[in-house]
């Protein structure tokens, strides 16, 4: 549809150019020769010299899709349209580019052409752009054939009838089942990420041998699926594709104090086996869906954290670009995570490999662009954007707490207002105050709040080592001429300047006063009087009529001239002589019978109010997406080559044509809405060929180390083909018909013989085991290694956690690098790994080293690296050593004899009985260490560390 609009527009442009050309041909015969001559002498050489390098057939380059080596080349133009419009220099992109006045490009890239050459181009175009160069086939982009694209396997509808009826019939596994120990360990680690304890292992082995391996798996699958640890394992897989993090990363690495709610939402969703279609709908449009009660509403709002936890360039000053970038990231994430498509590739041009036209991309981008993600400003800086947070609905108890707090705040505000009114009355009595902020300063004064008795937010200091001369000038407008007392504040106290030079300018001239600032100010502990002066409007000569209008000023200057100590400049108070008593009485109510000076009261109230505001009982908030309103909701224009200001045709909001049925293509987005509800409907439509396949494949991958499609986030043409296409459809189809139940799908997989096979290597024509004639031997994940160690040693904190970054404040990592808070502490944490802080750029090393994915990227398939850093971690980290010691303390207390102790260690850590040579070697090792005056406990700890570091512990067989 939009593709069509675009193509029509393009046609239209070409027509316009050609028409213009015809007009020119009709009336331009008389001076053809001179124009040709002009082209040959001025334009062609310039084109050859400066442009052909990147825009000619000969150079093999047509950057920006543009050729300039033939007339047709510029007539058709590049990605931005025709490059030259004859007679219209201002419309000609070539001229705009070489004149550096265009929006998108400045040509040539390595420097501006001379003014003369630019003028030549302008004349040439104004005269009709005569160009004798024929030939050259214009590079018109091939029209993308979306219908043809639908024949690719992943866009085809799922099969609905199958020649086989179970996983095992599709795969035809050949290897015998794994031993009871290995199978139990595999099942536990795959389902809950923790190993079986000795009792569980015993029970599993009993059923395995007494009944059958299948029965043991069946019984334990049910047990494990109902444990809360299941969600804590499986939510983490979704967090990989949802690029979950607890901080923004990007430019300003700010903490996401509320992102944990989304993480816990995911754990809960997997534990309650939320249907996958609902799971997706809530994450895309939860804030817009109907809710049954407050809790349901909160949950659905939190689900949109999926859109919110992305890294954002919050300091991007080009805000339209920032909003496009954010929406782009969301579209790309939805593409990879849910559809297995790299939609981001279609931002600048039609997708090079998959049948996704740019218009489809912008159709989806419009939906996300109509959604509020970035929101408001941070730190009072218009260049720094914040993100949308929404208050959640609260329970009655909390509501009461909030109300109490609100009442108290109101009382204090009222009292503060009363005192401030009083203060104003003072001013009305003729006393005038001016703080340093309103004065004019020269030089670099330092702001300070060290001395509490000052006016305003701070006072200024000229430090004693200042070599430059600093001064400050208070010019204070007075209500009328008259006699006033001039007072200054400087805090007073040891170490200050004893000869601070003040100059007062008054009706009689200037008076210089040298004041000792170490003196404690005598008036109410705040003011020091410089004396009484008369102020009048300065004489204006011969226009007495205007005398009335002129303002009266009192002027006081202070500098660091001839000083040796720090000079303080704060405020000036000017009091009419006849009002002194009144003013001081109100200011110092001790005289008036009350207890405190007014300004002290005001200050106290302000402090109290501030404390109340900081300690406000938090109304729980979450990162929640919302629709924009008004003009910000709507379709987007295509950005040609992805450039913010390079506008193409409008792309009506919608979905991918290649994965849409005819009905879906007709969906219209209601007026004033973003379209996320419709997007969620489209994604989870049972007929969507991708959504169910992609998720079924993700589940499969967790049990075999590789998906049926090994590129789990790319089901496009550049992805890998499925090894078992029918099986994939079988799984996807059952997944949908079982109500999108992830747990049902898991049951099917683990209860297959295919899953239960052993992993022993067999000689085979399939060395990579793509066809699963045996199980794979897989490295245990980062979380499994860490959580298993904690569980085995009895150190695991099994509580569900909330925010992992609460203690970090606004910055997860400060730009100055002075505090690197997130790095040091995580070694001491004992909660499950899923609850560890995921700071972008500082993922806990115990996880990052073992391939926890970079949270900036959607990662359905983790890298599996083997690097020395992992070995260094196992050998040297405080964590592994602490855990080894803890384990040693435990087993040494349980056993007096070495042999049973070693058996116990093998049983608990490697989940198998120790063999005789294991025991003898371990005994020997521990023996050597104890002979070298190590304590038994230290020696055992050293051996425990060996088992934790062993390949047997680090792999799942």
């Amino acid at each position: 549809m939009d593709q069509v609009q675009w193509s029509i527009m393009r046609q239209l442009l070409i027509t316009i150019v050609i028409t213009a050309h015809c007009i020119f041909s009709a009336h331009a015969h008389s001076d053809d020769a001179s124009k040709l001559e002009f082209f040959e002498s001025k334009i062609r050489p310039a084109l050859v010299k400066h442009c052909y390098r990147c825009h000619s057939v000969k150079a093999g380059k047509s950057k920006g899709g543009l050729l300039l080596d033939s007339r047709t080349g510029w007539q058709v133009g590049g990605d931005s349209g025709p490059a030259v419009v004859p007679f219209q220099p201002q419309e000609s992109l070539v001229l705009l580019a070489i004149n550096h006045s265009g929006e998108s490009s400045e040509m040539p890239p390595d420097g501006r052409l001379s003014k003369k050459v630019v003028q030549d181009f302008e004349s040439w175009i104004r005269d009709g752009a005569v160009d004798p160069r024929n030939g050259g086939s214009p590079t018109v982009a091939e029209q993308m054939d979306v219908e043809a694209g639908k024949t690719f396997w992943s866009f085809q509808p799922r099969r609905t009838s199958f020649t086989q009826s179970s996983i095992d019939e599709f795969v035809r596994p050949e290897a015998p089942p794994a031993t009871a120990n290995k199978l139990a360990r595999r099942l536990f680690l795959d389902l809950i990420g923790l190993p079986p304890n000795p009792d569980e292992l015993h029970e599993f082995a009993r059923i395995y041998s007494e009944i059958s391996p299948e029965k043991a798996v069946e019984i334990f699958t049910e047990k494990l699926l109902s444990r809360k640890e299941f969600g804590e394992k499986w939510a983490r897989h979704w967090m990989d594709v949802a690029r979950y993090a607890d901080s923004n990363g990007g430019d300003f690495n700010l903490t996401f104090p509320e992102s944990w709610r989304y993480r816990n939402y995911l754990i809960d969703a997997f534990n309650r086996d939320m249907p996958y279609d609902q799971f997706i709908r809530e994450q895309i449009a939860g804030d817009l869906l109907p809710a049954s009660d407050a809790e349901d509403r909160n949950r659905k709002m939190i689900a949109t954290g999926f859109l919110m936890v992305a890294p954002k360039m919050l300091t991007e000053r080009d805000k339209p670009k920032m909003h496009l970038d954010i929406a782009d990231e969301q579209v790309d994430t939805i593409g990879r995570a849910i559809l297995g498509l790299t939609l981001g590739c279609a931002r600048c041009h039609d997708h090079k490999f998959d049948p996704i036209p740019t218009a489809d991309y912008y159709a989806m981008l419009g939906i996300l662009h109509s959604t509020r993600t970035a929101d408001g400003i941070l730190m009072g800086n218009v260049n720094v954007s914040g993100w949308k947070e929404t208050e959640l609905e609260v329970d009655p108890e909390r509501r009461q707490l909030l109300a109490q707090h609100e009442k108290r705040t109101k009382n204090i505000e009222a009292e503060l207002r009363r005192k401030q009114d009083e203060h104003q009355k003072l001013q009305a009595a003729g006393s005038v105050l001016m703080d340093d902020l309103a004065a004019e300063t020269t030089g670099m004064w330092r702001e300070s709040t060290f001395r509490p008795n000052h006016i305003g937010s701070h006072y200024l200091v000229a430090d004693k080592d200042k070599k430059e001369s600093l001064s400050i000038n208070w010019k204070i407008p007075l209500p009328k001429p008259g006699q006033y007392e001039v007072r200054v504040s400087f805090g007073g106290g040891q170490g200050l300047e004893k000869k601070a030079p003040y100059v007062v300018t008054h009706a009689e001239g200037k008076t210089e006063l040298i004041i000792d600032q170490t003196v404690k100010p005598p008036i109410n502990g705040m003011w020091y009087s410089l004396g009484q002066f008369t102020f009048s409007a300065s004489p204006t000569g011969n226009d007495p009529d205007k005398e009335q209008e002129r303002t009266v000023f009192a002027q006081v200057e202070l500098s660091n001239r001839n000083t040796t100590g720090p000079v303080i400049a704060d405020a000036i108070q000017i009091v009419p002589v006849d009002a002194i008593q009144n003013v001081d009485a109100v200011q110092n109510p001790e005289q008036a019978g009350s207890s405190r000076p007014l300004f002290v009261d005001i200050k106290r109230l302000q402090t109290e109010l501030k404390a109340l505001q900081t300690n406000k009982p938090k109304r729980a908030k979450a990162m929640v997406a919302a629709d924009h309103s008004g003009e910000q909701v709507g379709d987007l224009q295509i950005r040609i080559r992805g450039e913010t200001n390079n506008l193409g045709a409008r792309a009506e909001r919608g979905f991918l044509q290649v994965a849409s049925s005819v009905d879906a293509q007709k969906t219209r987005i209601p007026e004033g809405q973003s379209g996320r509800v419709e997007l969620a409907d489209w994604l989870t439509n049972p007929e969507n060929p991708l959504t169910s396949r992609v998720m079924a494949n993700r589940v499969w991958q967790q049990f075999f180390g590789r998906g049926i499609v090994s590129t789990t986030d790319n089901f496009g043409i550049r992805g890998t083909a499925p090894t078992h296409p029918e099986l994939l459809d079988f799984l996807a189809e059952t997944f949908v018909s079982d109500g999108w139940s992830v747990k049902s799908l898991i049951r099917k997989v683990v209860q297959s013989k295919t899953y239960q096979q052993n992993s022993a290597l067999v000689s085979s024509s399939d060395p990579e085991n793509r066809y699963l004639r045996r199980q794979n031997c897989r490295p245990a994940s980062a979380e499994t290694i860490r959580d298993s160690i904690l569980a085995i040693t009895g150190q695991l904190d099994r509580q569900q956690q909330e925010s992992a970054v609460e203690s970090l404040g606004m910055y997860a990592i400060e730009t100055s690098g002075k505090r690197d808070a997130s790095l040091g502490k995580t070694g001491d944490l004992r909660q499950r790994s899923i609850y560890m802080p995921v700071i972008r750029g500082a993922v806990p090393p115990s996880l990052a080293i073992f391939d926890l994915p970079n949270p900036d990227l959607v990662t359905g398939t983790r890298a599996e690296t083997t690097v020395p850093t992992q070995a260094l971690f196992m050998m040297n980290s405080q964590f592994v050593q602490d855990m080894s010691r803890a384990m040693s303390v435990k087993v040494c207390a349980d056993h007096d004899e070495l042999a049973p102790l070693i058996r116990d260690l093998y049983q608990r850590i490697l989940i198998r009985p120790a063999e005789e040579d294991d025991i003898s070697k371990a005994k020997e090792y521990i023996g050597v260490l104890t002979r070298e005056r190590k304590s038994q406990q230290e020696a055992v700890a050293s051996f425990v560390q060996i088992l934790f570091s062993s390949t047997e512990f680090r792999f799942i067989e």
Partner: protein
Amino acid sequence: MKQCEKFTIPQTRRHWLQTTGCGFGAVAFHALSQQIAAAAEPSLSTQALHHTPKAKRVIFLFMHGGVSQVDSFDPKPMLKQYDGKDLPFKGLDTLDIALKDNLKNNPKNGRVLDTTWKFRQHGESGAWISDLWPHLTKHADDLCFIKSMHTRGTSHGQAVGMIHTGNDNLLRPSLGSWVSYGLGTENENLPGFVSITPPAGHGGARNYGAAFLPAHHQATTLGHSGSKTADATIRFLKNPTRDLSEQQRQLEMLQQVNKKHFAQNHHPQIDGVIRSYEMAFRMQNIAPDLIEIKNESKATRELYGLDQKPTADFAHRCLLARRFCEAGVRYLQVSTPYVWDQHGGLVKGHTKNALSVDQPISGLLTDLKQRGLLEDTLVVWGTEFGRTPVAQGTNGRDHNPAGFTVWLSGAGIKSGYSHGATDDFGYYAQENKVHMHDLHATILHLLGIDHEKLTYRYAGRDFRLTDVYGEVVKDVLA
């Protein structure tokens, strides 16, 4: 410790590369083969390069915050003439200058600000260097200035991302990780890419990360921006309680346990882990000596300025860079803290910052030269963007991505040369403009890599450092 090689490996090396998550671009061969797969296999590096390299390694000196070109290397007499006046043309729209309320009434704000420092010509080449850099002047004839740099992003985050990864917004592999991926390490016991005190903010780890390249190409870091170099170390390198001989015994026992496991199941990944323990142990023996500088001679300490307060810390970083270079690390970055951002206090700030790095950098160049290392080491001095020739406040300059200066020195570089120019005020790059992508293309070129051919397939697309941009700046090549 080499016993494991006698085990038969039932599967191919190809499998290895797959299990470690690597796909390979046209040239890449890289660290992994050396580190894990088989020490027996010869490095492919020399055959697989696109052309003969001039440089074997790179030291990248990163000045974080934005060094002012018109106060350092790009003299503009017009600044004196226009001091306090308006520019005769329009500045960048995206700058802060006009926005700051408290500066609106300042008459100097947004107007041309002359430099405080005097520029003089130095060396036979007559290179212009301001008095801000007294030590560097000794190397005037070793340097090649590019005075027409421009980049993307008026905020630090974007521009810092550009200089390190070639992207101002999205996560991409860093320059050093591309080099590690392309060339591997010269010393199999050390990583190919080391970053000393890297920036903590403005993208932080992105700037030395591997993004979607295999993870081991990310930098091994020493400390972080803001930490004291003397305390910086490689994480988990030292065992807090056990000495080496004790650890060796433990490792031998571990390998016995592992080898029994391997003998039972023959999975090649298990052999890989066994090797990784051996390599870790070797690294643990070598790296601490490399980081320890106490045996450096008095002359060297004086050369770098290691014993004076203002220069001590950066001198330490530069000295480590030389030591790592010598040991065979391919790509080394040394960063200043985020200190160069003088929106105000330009004179004081730039004076202090230049003082702390000028002698160490000059010392590094002298030291590399003395040791013959400068012949095959490329030194790059850069900053994320320059600063405006107009004032922010009374004594500051705003960010300027439209025109700034970097310099190169060493292997394959035309020394005593200056390339490109900004306009008469030093605002916009004008002659022979060099974009950050071009600088990246040039650095790769000097290492023997064609920037258009060093690619990595991720999410169905072949990525490269320079995206779809970049041209080698041939003019700066010797």
